[in-house]
């Protein structure tokens, strides 16, 4: 099992070596990058907005119920919701959701290209398929995932505020005060750093699984499932490592 893991890890780094090569045509790579940004990033906005609004609302409800004490001001509920969204929910949970949506998309699309010989066609033309197909996806993810997470932070905070106000769980003014009280800009840096690392994991790991598919349609599905599992493990592991390194 360990030797299999090490072989896979070695293959992953060799794959990255093939991905980060000089493009045959910068213009064509840029066109592909724009397409991928639309496909992987823009199309994820509605999902991120929807999930973030409701997760923010749920966080407020749960925190308000658990801190339902006349000696605890509503401002502290606002602080708890803000920190929860900023530190953990937006970067980590949204990345896990994107691993399912974007990661499986990358894995299955590359797997399909592999089994239908589209990658061979690129290679015969003299185009490096690893670089042409994967580099724009990694670039688009690194650029757009932080934007999605910033969206998620704002939507989560909005959802939390609206739920607290509509359900009369908190005093809106005091709750809102908590959003701004002792705000640490470094937490935004921490959150976005995690997002960039997760974006790289999602795009490169899913691409590695898709790129190495052998067989037919069934193997494409299996690779997609394995990719989501591997990405989830990696995100959780790197979440711990980055938190330990950046917040201690």
């Amino acid at each position, binding site marked *: 099992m360990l030797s299999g893991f090490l072989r896979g890890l070695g293959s992953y780094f060799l794959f990255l070596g093939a991905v980060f090569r000089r493009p*045959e*045509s910068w*213009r*064509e790579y840029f066109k592909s990058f724009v*397409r991928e940004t639309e496909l992987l990033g823009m199309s994820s906005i509605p999902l991120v907005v929807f999930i973030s609004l409701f997760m923010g609302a749920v966080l407020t409800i749960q925190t308000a119920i658990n801190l339902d004490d006349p000696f605890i001001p509503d401002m502290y509920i606002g602080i708890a919701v803000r920190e929860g969204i900023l530190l953990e929910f937006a970067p980590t949970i949204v990345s896990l959701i994107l691993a399912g949506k974007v990661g499986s998309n990358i894995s299955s699309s590359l797997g*399909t290209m592999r089994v*239908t*010989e*589209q990658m*061979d*066609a690129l*290679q*015969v*033309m*003299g*185009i490096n398929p690893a670089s042409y197909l994967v580099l724009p996806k990694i670039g688009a993810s690194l650029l757009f995932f932080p934007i999605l997470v910033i969206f998620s932070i704002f939507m989560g905070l909005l959802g939390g505020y609206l739920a607290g106000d509509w359900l009369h769980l908190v005093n809106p003014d005091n709750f809102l005060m908590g959003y701004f009280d002792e705000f640490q800009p470094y937490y935004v840096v921490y959150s976005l750093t995690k997002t960039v690392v997760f974006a790289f994991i999602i795009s490169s790991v899913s691409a590695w699984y898709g790129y190495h598919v052998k067989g037919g349609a069934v193997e494409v599905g299996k690779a997609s499932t394995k990719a989501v599992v591997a990405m989830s493990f990696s995100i959780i592991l790197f979440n711990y490592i980055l938190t330990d390194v950046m917040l201690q």
Partner: protein
Amino acid sequence: MIEVRGIKKAFGDQEVLKGIDMDLKPGQCNLIIGSSGSGKTVMLKSIVGLIQPDAGQVLLDGRDWTAMKERDRKVLRQEMGMVFQASALFTSLSVEDNVRFPLDFFSSMSPAEKDQRVAFCLDRVRIPQSALSKNPAELSGGMQKRVAIARAIVLNPKYLFCDEPNSGLDPETSIVIDQLIQEITREFGMTTVVNTHDMNSVLEIGDHVVLMRHGHKVWEGAGPDILKSDDQEVVDYVFRSALFKRVRAAMNK
């Protein structure tokens, strides 16, 4: 001329190509034929560089393709076009953009010149204007193959490789595709290599034929001569179908 010298390839313990030599003639339709598992697809992929052979050489007009560095290979690849068994058209692009794709990468033509070249190639393979904006998945199998041929010739290559171009097509469409490959070979003076198990293709377009069996070359020669061969392995392959058995019997009378 494509010269293949002593090509060997094994996957694990399984030896697929056992030291094959062949000379694929310039400006002709060269057919590599054989049953499933004979090694012809591995042979073709070794010739185009999709598979690195364990031993041997492939010489493209005297240039040792197998010993070249990847950078030099990329330049030489622009002299190649390939039609794949499953067409391998890019499903994210329209028919027109599929054919334009190699030009966008490797041509210094102006956009107007590219439009002209794409229109010429699609017209040459008889793709109607109405299909240009369609996704390849919306086309029939025969049309997909024709678009794949258009994409393969858009850079005006010296060598055209076709892996089972008739696979999945009805007999009538197969003949159309065969004839198209032959016409294009003659018209543009290309060296064409077609991988097939279809004896109709051998009789229709086979200027030069190589028969493979179990990783060995069994026979090589001018296409029509294969019917005259007395070699038992050739006879077994060529006359295995009921129709050809009757033809053979009629010839013997």
